[in-house]
């Protein structure tokens, strides 16, 4: 079947609306526009699209809210973008059992609002929740500052419905939080980046909303002091929701709300619980920060609090970032990683802004570099330095031209060979997002 044939075939199939031509350009992936955007209304439609596409030997890239579409190697081809946004229903919500099942195209924020009405919440805080879909966030294994307290998708997903490259619908897990029947295929789809299957629905375990919330921001003169404070909190007995270190200029909302904190290295701590627990946490944090010689401590509330929390979560995603890197190191290596990034920027006569999820060893940095050669040189140098201690560096976002000759994931080895064999089993014809994955999967 040709591509015009596919469009006609899909439109004739039940419940699939199709875009093509200039309307489809909005759904470009790394600058490659699809010939067709198919938007199914239900899971049967998802199967129909994949069955037709795989029979015609076409490449399909799933699309949720588009917030993570930059992440991945340049696709070898993009014929069909599979727009999952119409599958946005809450399928089953059992507040008494603290589980919810929703279709993959539901946005994270929309789902949170449903849960909030019953005094519960989903402990996943990926960036841009008003746009990010649960399917996309899980496929990208997107996470935010709250992963410190609650973990990531693998700690929250208990059931998955997915459609494989040939259109076959499968499910794994179930609706109960304890379940060891069969292989844990939930884990397979998490972080698979649209290369192993299309997630069509997810079941999550939930938590009760907390009565009180708090946010404390401490401004330090230098990165060493800030990282030291963060480390003390991470290793202590308090159980905050998040502990982030942010460099000067990293979080717009913070600079606006706390002008006196400009130019500092800040530690941002979110916490919640009962009134007594929140008071205790707040008290301990203030004592710790003052004891370590911080310049100032702030306790933003209201809209400032919301803006800072969102800014820390959505770091680098304001549309201005040209290059975003994610270093994965051990929590004890966060300081030296921040220092290394700053030095690399200084060596190139530029600057970078940094946010570190201090308790998880994730150091994000945003750079104003667009020249592909400079990008490649920088990435190679940083990877070389990180490799010595076992750290990794992912290029989360960069100009599409810079992706030429660049492996955004930067890992190899026998485990990658195993991953290739998984891909070979699940998508032998490389229908799904070909080339985007680790090792060119």
């Amino acid at each position, binding site marked *: 079947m040709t591509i015009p044939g596919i469009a006609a075939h899909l439109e004739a199939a039940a419940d699939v609306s199709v875009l093509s031509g200039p309307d489809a350009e909005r759904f470009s992936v790394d600058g490659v526009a699809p010939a067709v955007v198919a938007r199914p209304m239900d899971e049967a439609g998802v199967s129909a699209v994949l069955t037709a596409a795989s029979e015609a030997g076409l490449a399909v890239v799933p699309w949720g809210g588009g917030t993570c579409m930059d992440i991945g190697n340049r696709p070898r081809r993009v014929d069909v973008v599979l727009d999952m946004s119409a599958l946005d229903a809450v399928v089953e919500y*059992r507040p*008494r*059992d*603290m*589980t919810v099942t929703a279709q993959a195209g539901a946005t994270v924020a929309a789902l949170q609002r449903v849960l909030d009405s019953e*005094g519960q919440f989903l402990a996943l805080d990926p960036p841009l929740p008003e746009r990010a879909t649960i399917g996309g966030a899980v496929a990208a294994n997107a996470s935010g500052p709250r992963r410190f307290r609650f*973990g990531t998708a*693998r*700690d929250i997903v208990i059931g998955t419905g997915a459609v494989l490259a040939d259109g*076959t619908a*499968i*499910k*794994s897990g*179930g609706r*109960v*939080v*304890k*379940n*060891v*029947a*069969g*292989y*844990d*295929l*939930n*884990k*397979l789809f*998490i*972080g698979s980046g649209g290369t192993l299957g299309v997630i069509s629905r997810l079941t999550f375990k939930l*938590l*009760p909303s907390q009565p009180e919330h708090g946010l404390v921001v401490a401004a330090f003169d230098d990165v060493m002091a800030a990282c030291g404070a963060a480390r003390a909190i991470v*290793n202590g*007995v308090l*159980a905050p929701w998040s502990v982030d270190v942010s460099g000067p200029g990293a979080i717009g909302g913070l600079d606006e709300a706390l002008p006196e904190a400009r130019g500092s290295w800040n530690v941002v701590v979110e916490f919640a*619980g*009962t*009134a*007594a*627990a929140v008071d*205790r*946490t707040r008290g301990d944090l203030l004592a710790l920060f003052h004891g370590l010689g911080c310049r100032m401590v702030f306790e933003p509330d209201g809209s400032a609090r919301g803006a800072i929390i969102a800014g820390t979560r959505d770091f680098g995603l304001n549309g201005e970032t040209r290059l975003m890197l*994610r270093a*994965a190191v*051990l*929590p*004890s290596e966060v300081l030296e990683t921040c220092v290394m990034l700053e030095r690399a920027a200084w060596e190139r006569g530029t600057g970078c802004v940094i946010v570190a999820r201090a308790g998880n*060893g994730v150091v994000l940095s945003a750079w104003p570099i667009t020249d592909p050669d400079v990008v490649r040189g920088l990435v190679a140098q940083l990877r070389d330095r990180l490799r010595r201690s076992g750290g990794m560096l992912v290029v989360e976002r960069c100009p599409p031209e810079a992706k030429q000759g660049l492996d955004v*994931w930067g*890992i190899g*080895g026998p*485990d990658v060979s*195993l*991953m290739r*064999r*998984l891909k*070979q*089993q*699940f998508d032998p014809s490389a229908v799904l997002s070909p080339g985007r*994955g*680790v090792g060119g999967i």
Partner: protein
Amino acid sequence: MTAATVSPQLVRELERIVGRDGVFHRPEDLLVFEYDGTIDRGYPAVVVYPRSAEQVAAIVRVAVLNNLPLVPRGAGTGLSGGALATEGGILMPLTRMNSILELDLENRIAVVEPGLVNLELSRAVAKHGLFYAPDPSSQKACTIGGNVAENAGGPHCLALGVTTNHVLGLELVLANGEIVRVGGWGRDRPGYDLTGVMVGSEGTLAVVTKVCVRLLRKPEAVRTFLAIFDTIDQATGAVAAVIGAGIVPGALEMIDKYVIRAVEPTLHCGFPLDAEAVLLVEVDGLREFVRECAASVGAIMREAGAREVRSADDPAEREQLWVGRKGAIGALGALAPNYYILDGVVPPSMLPEVLTRVYEICERYGFIVGNVFHAGDGNLHPNIVFDERVPGATAKVLDAGGEVLRVCVEAGGSITGEHGVGVEKRDYMSLIFSEADMAAMAKLKRAFGAGERFNPCKAFPTHKGCGEVHRGPAVAALGPDIYV
């Protein structure tokens, strides 16, 4: 050579790999390895104890060359038959690989060998104020490797998660003898979550030779409550009220009247023999939180009609409150020579209804059933006591178990919450998975290149060729009633 017996050459080959003290092939030695925590039996042709990943790899190559099944084994405490050599071949206990290889206190990570006993890990890091969270009831004996194979839970997994949430990476030996590391070992690693699919794979995909785990900081304060109820309904009502109040306890366990009557005479917990249920609730965290929570939990228990509420925050006293729950299974042994533990899981809201059905089913079959359950996550463990010497008793027990599993699935649950599918639940997989679902799992197995090498005929529906191996002739010659 069949999978039931091995040649002297094979024995010598294995001795060359692990030394003579690492290989067992005499009938009286093989007997000891025929059982685990279930009523099933398996008959290995030879037992070999490796001490390193390299030795494991060499043993795998021997198994391949001789086309023999290879069954990795931990402490043999499993409750689904996972550690039994049901298809004969080589049984490979990993208990001589039991060291803590690395301890990174700063980042709270440990690298351990699979044969390390679960509780030993927590004991080793206790002095640093740390612990390893997954705490199955068998933790004094079970091994980390076995926990990985089954994705083991435990009472404290309600708040903290199960084994897979605490494993950061693995070292594996694949079916071709290759040694591979998967996972980030404390750092985020891009790509597919190979660690995640290995945990809970019941020893069928690869052999685990190292486990990188996350350690947690001990909470500042802990308080344990024990509440005694006249009726089961009051107890399940109390559970619902705790969850409804937005409290996520560290543990929420229940035992029923049959368990109470079994434990009281031997363990003297002070349980009234006419009580229908005892509930254990544990809350932990900051001192202030525990204090506040304690008041709420106490009030909830009394409002739900508790006859008596005890609580403790001192470690020794808390241990005392747990005695009845922890000693439950052992105490049931006084009622009859055999027991069969089920592992059903349902949405917690369905527990009262399902429990009623469990009692009804067991009564119909003529069995006493004592229930122990993880009330917070809907994971129930009916313990059916019986005597296998009574003709037909075992078959009846298995039938009763099957009916209970069907009830759990109908209630929206699963066929196994934490014990694994193993042997006796493999033919119930089709209650919850379609052919397409199982075909997808088969793709995973093919990706690992495992074929039927590791732990064949486990975890998935049986096919022709399963269950044809019986006791080898030399062992059988020891006599029909030989029993350990």
